[in-house]
């Protein structure tokens, strides 16, 4: 079951089980993604994690913002992908001891700490856990519940084996107990296991050690540690979780009662200048608090939720709407106030909070429970890693990175991904992981495929002569399904259905052991068809098809009955009806499965060329990386020059000269022999599919045709043209980009300006453009600092709604304030007013705004007014969306396949996304994402073939009357007539058929059929409905 190298492998052998391409340090979501991208593109990876299982912090989260996806549900398939991947070697309970060598040739000594359980023998049966007499706080549940001294990290852990905590184990303390060793039938317990050293050779390293949660216990912030009902947000995350200490019921620690009034306190450990705090913004807390509010209200609709916050930083894609969703729930208050804890009320153990509002002054209010929205700090072992790998850290203890390539550390060959770069959410961590993989690929391109191995499946059993023997597995999904749907009843029901020979429950069908068990049952019981009643096939079908293949039957002998998204989650209050519906769904699925046929997939060749649309910063970065990795790239730009929006940027907040960088990048792109730059180009037509696209375009007026295997959309965004604040009528009113241009060119109007006012949120955060443009707050700060630098006495005012200088940008916000930049908050219903004034022979602008603290109108006289004009989607998006069959979100930006885990992919295979076409973002973020998109595109292009689905059409010739109805329906031109002994008959070209089945609905005789969705299969579902 496990192919990990075992004890004694510390010396290098020529076959090289210890020779790899890349070492990934840290097995959180970022490390996992980096490993998978590398493994899929032909590199061999060691994935090292110091904890007993991979998964990192994401595995502890209940849900993820802003889609409320179940965190474990979306992450655990990745665990299995890693564990099944022949090119990924997972080493848990392992630390780095020593690093020698240099980029391209590192020798890394690892310390495989003892887990006192032999990983290769343990089956994860949990017998030892049952018998272990020592109860200890469970670190996975943030010590809110108890587990045993020997236990499995969490139910879906990979590897799914127990480990013993030597600090609490009786044997390790005073050799008193060996019960576990006695009860283990497999003799997997090895209480005397010793640490082993292992040396691995790799060409590159990705550091993804993640972050630490700020610990409020150190200073006792807000009574944490003393007052029982004050918990951290990560603790609350576990409390919300169905696998948490209270099985998904919200209870408070002091007495286990359901709290009715919960307060969240934002910025705990973040945005603090006091000792022990962190000055920067942790970027994620606003959104995760909104998530927790929404979920808590979902658990208990009567709940009163109060969030005490500073700015609301809803700067990410769809965050603004998410905030509104939380804020608009009944009995939810967002109060802008600093707070202090009053006291813990004896008896009730409730907690009071003192806060003040502009309207009511200071108040003290009682709550049943208080959640501290704690921030992110540098990982504990960051310093240690820095010393061992010879990399530099920044003053905050995070990895010091190249400001124009946040994936590069100070040492060549060592890359960084995830929150070790600085506070990051999940998609950013995933993007940077793919990006780091792209940089490793660039470094090691010469070695691609040298060490990689193929996955082997057992031979497929021929079941054509067998009666249908269906196995039904009904998943509890922890409590996600089981809490609503009566799973045992559904199992019993399923077991009585025709052709069902086996029915059982699964706690988590997608966990390694359950999946393994399913393939075992297929073999043992001779099943030839499988129904898994669990979640949606859109996320889990690939995983279970793989499981079915492991069981030795054709992967199309499988159907998913979606009793979670379409049942348990949407009928959570009607348990009986949900159970009845789940039975119906299973009955329909079994009926369909009875008729399923084995199908073979076809392999199509891959054209190893990429087309990149958009020659801005994103497009150029992707092109250069892919070309360096040995792929041909066509870089298409609609303008006459490369550079895009970046041509209007002159410096970053961090002080980098953007023009110099972009100039150098364009030079490299033009000079690269594998990059073909096509300026003045516009796409006319796209045909084909992943691996084999043909794009026709006009380039400088000439028609061209490009054949390519993948495409990256990097078309950028545009600047909103304001219609308000006298813009266009008065040349003293500029957009921030225009202001930046004038500052850079030292234009007279700027040089002479004594007073500059900037107004934020112009053209976004409105009903029509309901999103935040993310970059403008930092842009305003950047301009303010530049203006102050030139003339410190100059008066600068920024009129804002929320300052969204997230992450380390917060420090520049503070710098601006300390240099005398004035900040005035305005409310959207009381916008500032700009008037042109002539007074005393002087022309200037007067900006009137209500000061919320004084409650009075302020009049500011300004020589220049800068408007933070929104970043709006590119005008070409609609057209491209149509041509490439990829969706846009309501704001006109491209919609990725999955917000969290596929942030640069589209659901359409072979099409990828990066830069501001996805959403507004900063220069460094764009670069990171461009590398990420390159890695994802190489996932396709590094293979010699793509697998096309077996679910395509075919014709029953005896029923075909050659009417041509199918042919006229198929715009893929996949059907034509061919001559047979019985005359003309329709014939399907398997390579061209995309399996939509439109022809089926047109055929008057039912002669043409879509495999896997045949009339008979669908009729059987209807009959069973």
């Amino acid at each position, binding site marked *: 079951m496990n192919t990990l190298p075992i004890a004694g492998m510390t010396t290098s052998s020529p076959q090289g089980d210890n020779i790899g391409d890349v070492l990934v340090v840290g097995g959180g979501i970022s490390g996992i993604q980096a490993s998978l991208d590398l493994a899929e593109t032909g590199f061999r990876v060691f994935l090292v994690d110091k904890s007993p299982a991979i998964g990192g912090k994401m595995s502890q989260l209940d849900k993820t913002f802003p*889609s*409320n*996806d*179940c965190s474990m549900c979306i992450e655990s398939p990745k665990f299995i992908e890693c564990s099944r991947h022949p090119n990924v070697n997972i080493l848990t309970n392992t630390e780095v001891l020593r690093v020698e060598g240099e980029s391209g040739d590192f020798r890394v000594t690892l310390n495989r700490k003892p887990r006192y359980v032999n990983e290769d023998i343990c089956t994860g049966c949990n017998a030892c856990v049952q018998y272990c007499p020592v109860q200890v706080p469970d670190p996975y549940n943030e010590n809110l519940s108890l587990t045993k001294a020997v236990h499995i990290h969490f139910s879906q852990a990979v590897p799914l084996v127990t480990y013993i905590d030597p600090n609490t184990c009786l044997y390790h303390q005073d050799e008193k107990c060996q019960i576990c060793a006695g009860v283990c039938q497999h003799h997997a317990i090895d209480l005397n296991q010793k640490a082993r050293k292992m040396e691995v050779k790799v060409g590159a390293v990705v550091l993804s050690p993640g972050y630490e949660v700020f610990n409020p216990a150190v200073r006792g912030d807000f009574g944490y540690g003393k007052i029982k009902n004050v918990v951290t947000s990560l603790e609350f995350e576990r409390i919300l979780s169905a696998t948490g200490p209270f099985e998904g019921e919200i209870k408070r620690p002091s007495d286990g009662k359901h709290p009715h009034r919960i307060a969240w306190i934002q910025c705990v450990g973040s945005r603090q200048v006091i000792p022990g705090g962190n000055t920067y913004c942790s970027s994620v807390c606003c959104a995760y608090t909104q998530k927790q509010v929404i979920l808590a209200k979902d658990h208990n609709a009567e709940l009163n939720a109060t969030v005490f916050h500073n700015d609301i930083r809803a700067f990410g894609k769809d965050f603004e709407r998410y905030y509104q969703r939380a804020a608009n729930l009944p009995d939810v208050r967002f109060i802008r106030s600093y707070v202090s804890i009053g006291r813990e009320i004896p008896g009730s153990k409730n907690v009071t909070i003192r806060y003040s509002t502009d309207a009511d002054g200071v108040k003290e209010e009682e709550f049943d429970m208080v959640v501290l929205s704690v921030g992110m700090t540098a990982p504990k072992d960051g310093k240690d890693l820095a010393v061992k790998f010879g990399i530099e850290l920044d003053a905050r203890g995070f990895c010091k990175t190249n400001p124009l390539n946040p994936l590069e550390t100070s040492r060549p060959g060592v890359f960084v991904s995830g929150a070790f770069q600085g506070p990051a959410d999940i998609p950013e961590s995933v993007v940077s992981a793919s990006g780091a993989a792209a940089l490793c690929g660039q470094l090691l391109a010469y070695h691609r495929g040298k060490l990689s191995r193929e996955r082997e499946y057992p031979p497929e059993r021929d079941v054509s002569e067998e009666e249908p023997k269906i196995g039904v597995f009904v998943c509890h999904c922890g409590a996600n399904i089981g809490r609503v749907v009566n799973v045992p009843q559904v199992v019993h029901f399923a077991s009585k259905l025709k052709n069902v020979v086996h029915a059982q429950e699964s706690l988590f069908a997608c966990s390694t052991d359950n999946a393994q068990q399913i393939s075992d049952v297929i073999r043992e019981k001779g099943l030839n068809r499988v129904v898994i009643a669990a979640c*949606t*096939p*859109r*996320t889990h079908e690939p995983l279970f098809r793989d499981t079915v293949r492991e069981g030795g039957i054709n992967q199309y002998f499988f159907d998913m009955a*979606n009793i*979670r*998204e*379409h*049942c348990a*989650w*949407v*009928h*959570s*209050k*009607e348990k009986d*009806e*949900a159970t009845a*519906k789940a039975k*119906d*769904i299973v009955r*329909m699925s079994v009926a369909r499965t009875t008729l399923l046929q084995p199908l073979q997939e076809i392999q199509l060749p891959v054209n190893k060329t990429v087309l990149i649309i958009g020659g801005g910063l994103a497009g150029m970065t992707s092109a250069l990386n892919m070309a360096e990795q040995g792929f041909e790239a066509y870089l298409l730009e609609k303008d006459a020059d490369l550079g895009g929006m970046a041509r209007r940027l002159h410096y970053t907040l961090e002080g980098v000269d953007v023009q110099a960088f972009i100039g150098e990048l364009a030079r490299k792109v033009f000079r690269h022999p594998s990059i073909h730059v096509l300026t003045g180009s516009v796409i006319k037509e796209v*045909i084909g599919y992943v691996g084999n696209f043909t794009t026709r375009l006009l380039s400088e007026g000439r028609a061209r045709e490009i054949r390519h295997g993948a495409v990256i959309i990097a078309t950028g965004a545009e600047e909103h043209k304001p219609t308000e604040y006298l813009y266009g009528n008065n040349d003293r009113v500029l957009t921030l980009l225009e202001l930046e241009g004038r500052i850079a060119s030292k234009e007279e109007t700027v040089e002479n300006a004594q007073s500059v006012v900037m107004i934020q949120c112009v053209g976004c955060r409105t009903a029509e453009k309901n999103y935040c443009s993310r970059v403008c707050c930092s842009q305003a700060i950047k301009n303010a600092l530049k203006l102050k630098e030139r003339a410190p006495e100059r008066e600068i005012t920024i009129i804002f709604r929320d300052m969204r200088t997230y992450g380390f940008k917060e420090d520049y916000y503070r710098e601006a304030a300390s240099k005398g930049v004035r900040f005035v908050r305005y409310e959207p219903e009381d916008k500032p007013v700009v008037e042109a004034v002539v007074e005393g022979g002087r022309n200037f602008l007067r900006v009137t705004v209500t000061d919320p603290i004084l409650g009075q109108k302020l009049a500011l006289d300004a020589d220049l007014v800068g408007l933070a004009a929104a970043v709006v989607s590119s005008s070409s998006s609609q057209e491209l*969306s*149509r041509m490439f*069959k990829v*969706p846009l*979100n*309501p704001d006109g930006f491209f*919609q990725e396949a999955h917000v969290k885990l596929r942030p640069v992919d589209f*659901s*359409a295979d072979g099409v990828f996304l990066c830069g501001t076409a996805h959403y507004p973002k900063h220069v460094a973020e764009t670069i990171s994402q461009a590398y990420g998109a390159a890695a994802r595109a190489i996932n396709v292009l590094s293979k010699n073939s793509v697998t096309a689905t077996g*679910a395509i059409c075919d014709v029953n010739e005896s029923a075909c009357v050659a*009417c041509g*109805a199918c042919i*006229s*329906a198929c*715009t*893929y031109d996949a059907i034509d007539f061919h001559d047979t002994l019985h005359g003309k008959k329709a014939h399907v070209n398997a390579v061209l058929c*995309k399996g*939509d*089945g*439109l022809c*089926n*609905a*047109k*055929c*008057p*005789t039912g002669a043409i059929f*879509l495999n896997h*969705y045949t*009339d008979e299969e*669908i*009729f059987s579902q*209807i*009959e069973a*409905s």
Partner: protein
Amino acid sequence: MSTVHEFKPRILGFLCNWCSYAGADLCGVSRYQYPASMKIIRVMCSGRVDLEFVLRAFAKGNDGVFIGGCWLGECHYITEGNYDALSMMHLGKKLLESAGLNPDRLRLEWVSASQGIRYAEVVTDFTEKLKVLGPIGTGEGMDENTLKLKLEAITKLLPYVKLVEREKIRVHFENKAEYEEYFASDQLKSLFNELIADKLAVSQIMSLLQAKALSTGEIASGLGMSAAEVTKHLKSSARQRLIRFDDNQKRYALA
């Protein structure tokens, strides 16, 4: 309206994999609640939904049939099957109507992958509408046998309907409103009456005669048609030698 107090409609939904099914998934992920009235069959494209699926679903006793697809212009496939689904839905409504069933029992909606809340709203709304319409057949004042017979008659006619659709009816418009206008037009009405409605009536009569020979009056009351209408169809069918008048029984029978 004789709506039974406790009536809970049963709906069968066909959702395209790329938009509506994904929207339904998102709806679940977001925990938006809706009634447990609808079961789903996943198809790759709404254009895959065959009229026969719809009819079979009603014959199986479903009170409503739902089709969910991508918004026009957003189909995952270049075949843009959602236009076909729209056209099929209109034709389906016509067929239901001509069989005396309420066409509102068939509903098509566009739900994109990002419209979780819309999915919940649409299912809730459709369920409420069907509650008002009442159970299939009963709501129309039709007994179970008549309902079966009528649906069977349409199903038998489907190969012909598909040919007619392709040759005479199929159009392509850019938006939903234009389709609505077209299917409500007199031109379409006369095409439908001329090419399909009569055939459908004959098909129903023949289905009815399959069991036993019947008089004009009996046929008329069995199918809810006027005697004059029945006579017209009987005459033409007799001419085509589909049926005959049995002198002994003084009834019409299959030829």
